[in-house]
């Protein structure tokens, strides 16, 4: 799976939070190797997933993204020893809370990708984007009821 498929129609907007040392490096390596994936996420580089604040995720949805992807080092490989270990518990609680309150499963993704895992980065990127794309545009005319992601968007 080294070529991405054509994506026509709805292009989701995804905010991606990557840790500098692992996933960002992995994304870089994927680029160097010309591995293709849809350009449907914008990256925010963090020193470590331990820097992730739950407010970042909410803020992204408020600003209008369709999905959020957070990725960092594998547990045990964190550049700061244990940042991702603390993050793991926060991610668990946050994902459970948001999906409990009604966030569509498929909008919030987490992964561990090391700086050497270029192909895994590409595969995960394609999976995440497809999962969010499959949910369709948030404000589509055929959406029956108001959804959480729709109403979290700050409309001025």
């Amino acid at each position, binding site marked *: 799976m080294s070529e991405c498929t054509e994506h026509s129609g709805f292009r989701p907007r995804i905010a991606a939070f990557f840790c500098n040392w692992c996933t960002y490096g992995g994304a870089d390596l994927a680029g160097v190797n010309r591995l293709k994936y849809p350009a449907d996420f914008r990256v925010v580089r963090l020193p470590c997933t331990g820097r992730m604040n739950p407010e970042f995720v909410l*803020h992204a949805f408020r600003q209008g993204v369709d999905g959020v992807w957070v990725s960092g080092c594998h547990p045990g490989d964190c550049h700061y020893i244990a940042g991702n270990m603390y993050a*793991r518990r926060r*991610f668990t609680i946050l994902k*459970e809370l948001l*999906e*409990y309150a009604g966030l569509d499963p498929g909008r919030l*993704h987490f992964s*561990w990708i090391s700086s050497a895992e270029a192909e895994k980065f590409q595969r995960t990127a394609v999976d995440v984007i497809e999962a969010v794309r499959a949910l369709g545009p948030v404000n589509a005319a055929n959406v029956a009821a108001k959804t959480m992601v729709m109403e979290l968007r700050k409309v001025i």
Partner: protein
Amino acid sequence: MKARAEKIREIAKRLLQEGKVDVVIGYARGASPMREQPFFARTPEEAGQLTWSSFCVGNTAKFLVQAAGAGERAGVVAQGCASRNVVGLIVEKQVARDKVVVIGVPCLGMVDSRKVEARIARSEGRRVESVAEEGEELVVRGRGFEKRLKRKELLRDNCFTCQHRNPVLADEMAAEPTAATGGGDIDTVAAPWEKLPAADRWASFRETFTDCIRCYACRDACPLCYCKTCFVDDAKPQWLGKTQDVTDVASFHLMRAFHCAGRCTDCGACESACPQGIKVRRLTSKIEKDIRSLYSYEAGMGLDAIPPMTTFRADDSDDFIKQGGAQ
């Protein structure tokens, strides 16, 4: 209840007389029916105003951070949940153990005044003017009526499923320990929206918080919320707006619930404080249920406990995190 009140007064008076504390934080007779108000007794005479009843619906641990800030040694009248919050504040280093004297009160549950009012036909112009406790009965009086109700049926929701009615930390006790739990099973009532299909959950969240007026009574009644600057007031960046937009109201409650993870004792002060009667616990109970099942932890059960969000285990669950693939 009367026996507890008398014992509390006696202990408080003694502590103040002996100079062991600068203030005893408890409850005094409230100004409205079915309400006792928090009270700071600073002299043995003032200790005479302390009381205890089924209407002590706040959380006295709330005031400990304030007392600590003023450099005071505080006595605190605390039942099971409040005593767990005292432990929590000590663990979080907001209060020093040697600056607190806990007057423990085994709790028989607190009455939800809204449930009492619902039993009185308010639409017929009948307003509750006074409620007296007589054993297990509540005598509700108003203009031209008197009604006897069973106390046990009118307890607050969280009191039915309380898991720790006896104080977990106490320097003095105002009564003999009582049955440990309220009888209900917290895990069957916690996180009610889990039973709903995913598509219906947001509607339930919306409906629950639709009357929120952003008064922050829930936050300000909560002993966990002691930040000098609440995230609500952050300006750079501003995480949420101050308007009544759904996104602003929802963001406040979601984030506040998250900040209570692994710390909340289900004391119900938030629901009791809310002027709109919002069932905040429908949201917060989810987090503590996860904390219990994932990390086998209950807040405030021991001074040596390590709060779950400040630690980790190598084998913490992470099935939802993508990490597989050919390696």
